[in-house]
């Protein structure tokens, strides 16, 4: 009885124990389920954004669509930079059998040269084999007709930049290069291509493609069309540009700028030697690039803007104007030129060793007398020269739409002290007064100076691009009295002065010649004809002029590097350019 009772009791406790333990297990299960739900909440609700982003990143690939680069046109509507469509034949990597079968059909459509065959064999291992580049239109048509027979073969079209006026416009238009990233987007490197790159480049579009884990494209989700780049119209006249280029091509290295001062437009800007813009923009071999880089005449250099020269006698205009303004001289004041001036035991020669005798301002400019300007600039002082030179645009950018424009060099006392640590010497003022010494300017700056004189406005800005609304035409007039004297003197230069030989015309040119010295003349070299001096040591021949006299409109600046005398070499070229412009104007007006 007792034992039975105990047994029952024990059984009862065991049953309770089982129930108790099952409760523990059930509790654990509930707890773990709750844990799962909690974690699910963390993943799907708290971090949902993060994982959605990752999921989209997984499956969506952006495939860019390249924009068409804007064209560059000349004022007369000729394209100087445009895009040519090129077709390529591509084949995916495939088995030998498929490859052979494909090639059989391809060879029926197009002719493959030996070079092409070799290239194909070399690139067999890459995921895409380029069967042929630059397919002709005929070949393209034939292949697209037969494309359905081919396996894994595709035709791809790409736009290639092309420059029709390859040499003539190479400096102005510039060149482009692949930007070197994954996308073959062209980037302007020089000239207008670089300066207006943002406007020309357009905006890339893209296609959103869904891909699977193996990277295979499943479908297109969305696409955004590219925005083509804007066309740019230059002020350059293609015919004039070509004419000027052909003229300069007879020299070794030269540059010329033609300005229409009525609106500041640059009608022609040529630098010779020029580079082949098509060649440079394409893929070049190392040897080709080396030959361009190591050319002693630096064909990549735009000599009109990116190269500074001593302005020589052209600068005398500024000095003369400054002297008149500062009332240091009157036009009739005469100064004696005996062929040289002695300062501190050093003799500064006039270009004419025989001397000019007593000369007034007109005669001094007419014959470009150095002694006269030595004396005038000595009286004027460097500070005054710099003050007026600055007003005429020396030492400052002209604001033309070309990259890395040179500003030249306007020597001041401060500059001298900072760069050499010595004080300014009086004779340096005299040398600066004839446009030599440290003084440097670009040809465009000289042309702009003429623009300022003939528009009678200090605010003259040259432009290369049509319809640039942003360029202000603020009036900042130059004082009439002094300017009239200078203009008269410049007219005389071409009628009875240094340029009289080449610039006497019916419509009338006013201008100034300059022969800027590049090295000190040795006593032995005095009187030697330019042909006997090594090319590198010859003077730069410069001529800047304006025509016609009655209604000045065109400024032509010509610089022949190491050409010799400005009157003998540069002025005749300018005369030809003027003739051409006037002829054209006559045709237009009739």
């Amino acid at each position: 009885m007792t034992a039975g009772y105990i047994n029952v009791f024990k059984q009862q406790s065991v049953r309770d124990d089982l129930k108790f333990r099952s409760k523990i297990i059930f509790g654990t299960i509930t707890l773990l389920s709750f844990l799962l739900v909690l974690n699910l909440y963390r993943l799907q609700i708290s971090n949902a954004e993060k994982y959605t982003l990752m999921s989209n990143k997984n499956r969506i690939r952006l495939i860019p669509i390249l924009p068409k680069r804007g064209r560059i046109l000349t004022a007369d509507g000729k394209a100087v930079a445009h895009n040519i469509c090129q077709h390529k034949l591509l084949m995916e990597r495939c088995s030998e059998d498929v490859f052979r079968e494909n090639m059989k059909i391809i060879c029926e459509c197009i002719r493959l040269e030996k070079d092409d065959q070799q290239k194909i064999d070399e690139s067999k291992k890459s995921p895409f084999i380029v069967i042929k580049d630059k397919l002709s239109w005929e070949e393209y048509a034939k292949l697209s007709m037969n494309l359905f027979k081919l396996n894994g073969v595709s035709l791809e079209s790409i736009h290639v930049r092309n420059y029709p006026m390859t040499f003539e416009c190479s400096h102005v238009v510039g060149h482009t290069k692949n930007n070197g990233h994954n996308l073959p987007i062209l980037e302007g490197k020089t000239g207008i291509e670089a300066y207006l790159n943002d406007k020309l480049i357009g905006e890339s579009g893209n296609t959103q493609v869904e891909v699977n884990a193996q990277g295979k494209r499943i479908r297109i989700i969305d696409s955004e069309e590219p925005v083509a780049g804007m066309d740019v119209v230059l002020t350059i006249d293609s015919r004039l540009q070509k004419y000027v280029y052909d003229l300069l091509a007879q020299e070794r290295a030269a540059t010329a700028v033609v300005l229409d001062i009525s609106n500041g437009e640059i009608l022609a800007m040529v630098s010779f030697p020029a580079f082949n813009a098509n060649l440079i923009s394409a893929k070049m071999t190392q040897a080709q690039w080396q030959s361009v880089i190591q050319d002693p005449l630096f064909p990549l250099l735009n000599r009109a803007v990116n190269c500074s020269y001593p302005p020589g006698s052209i600068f005398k205009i500024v000095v003369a104007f400054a002297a008149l303004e500062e009332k240091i001289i009157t036009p009739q004041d005469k100064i004696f030129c005996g062929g040289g001036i002695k300062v501190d035991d050093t003799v500064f020669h006039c270009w004419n060793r025989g001397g000019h005798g007593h000369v007034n301002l007109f005669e001094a400019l007419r014959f470009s007398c150095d002694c006269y300007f030595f004396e005038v600039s000595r009286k004027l002082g460097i500070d005054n020269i710099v003050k007026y030179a600055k007003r005429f645009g020396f030492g400052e950018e002209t604001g033309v739409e070309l990259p890395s424009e040179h500003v030249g060099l306007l020597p001041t006392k401060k500059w001298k002290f900072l760069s050499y640590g010595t004080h300014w010497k009086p004779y340096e003022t005299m040398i600066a007064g004839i446009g030599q010494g440290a003084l440097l300017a670009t040809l465009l700056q000289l042309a702009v100076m003429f623009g300022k004189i003939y528009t009678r406005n200090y605010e003259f800005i040259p432009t290369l691009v049509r319809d640039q609304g942003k360029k202000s035409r603020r009036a900042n007039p130059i004082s009439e009295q002094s300017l009239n004297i200078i203009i008269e003197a410049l007219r005389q230069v071409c009628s009875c002065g240094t340029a009289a030989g080449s610039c006497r015309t019916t419509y009338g040119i006013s201008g100034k010649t300059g022969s800027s010295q590049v090295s000190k003349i040795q006593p032995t070299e005095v009187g030697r004809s330019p042909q006997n001096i090594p090319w590198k040591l010859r003077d730069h021949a410069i001529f800047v002029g304006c025509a016609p006299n009655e209604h000045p409109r065109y400024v032509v600046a010509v610089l022949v590097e190491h050409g010799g005398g400005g009157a003998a070499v540069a002025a005749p070229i300018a005369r030809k350019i003027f003739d051409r412009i006037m002829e054209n104007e006559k045709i237009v007006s009739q």
Partner: protein
Amino acid sequence: MKKLFPNECRILFTLLFVLLIISLCGQYSAFGGQWRGPVLRHLLRIFASLAIMWGVYIMDFRIWNNFAYLFYILAILSLIIVDLLGIIKFGAQRWIDVYFFTFQPSEPMKLTLILALARYYSMLSPIEVNQLRSHAWPIFMTFIPAALVFRQPDLGTAVLLIIIGCSMMFLSGFPLKIFLITIGSCVVLCPLGWFCLRNYQKNRILTFLDPNRDPLGMGYHILQSKIAIGSGHLFGRGFLQGTQGKLNFLPEKNTDFIFTTIAEEFGFLGALLVIFLFFCICCYFFWVADESRFKFAKVTCYGLGIFMFIHVFVNVSMVMGLLPVVGIPLPFLSYGGSSMISFMISCGLVMAASARKHHQQSPPFFQ
């Protein structure tokens, strides 16, 4: 005479019905929205295993009691056969070819282990239960199959067998102190077990501990799975709209990672529903166990509840990156016959137990 459809099991039927619908949707979506082929096969499997479930329910429950050891021994034998001449798939020897289909003996092993342990404990007198030595057999019975499965190698199932065995021992009155001490020492000795693991198992555990260790290799699966679950938000991407699975970023998207597919397409609510359904099924199992008077049935039902839940827990934790990747299927939802049948049999057993929960003793059948 038993009823064809027992009234007590309406709840279970409802739960199962919803789960099987979700299962079909999940498989349909994971196979790319096609009825033919695998999805149809899955449907057939569902019907076949439902029939088996009904058969188990109809059968005399005492058969399970009386043949528990026999089934256990058969399962052990089949494991040994797998070890000797099994088919090697995916680098593991887990399948036997039985002429018309291949099956994984480790699946019935879990069931027979539960039955055998239940039989053993139901025979034990209350006094014996409190003695440590009476638990020697269950330990032996648990670790033999675990060792055999571990040899396949299938770490996940081996651990599962041990967990099921241990929880049943705990349930049946394993001395509490010793149980806690053993668990404690196991945790301490765990690092020693490291040396018994194969390289790929080590890799999985290392990757689990630091998913960024190898984001494109082992960690890839877990990361992709988490991305898929996470991108589901509250309502999911919509039926057939999941991108991770469809675009092959998910591995094993219709077997072990089916929960991921469901969570991506049906969102937090869908995943919650799945977990809730499983929880309810476990509750039902435990309720039947509580109600049952027949001790064998009682212990069996508890065991089956644990069996069901541990699968769900390990699988869901695995796809959410809470546990290392081990090949544990999600009951009813994963594609595959063996697991489907064994879970349906569990349901059938619980239904049978529920139908006769008032029977106190099993009448002698075969003595």
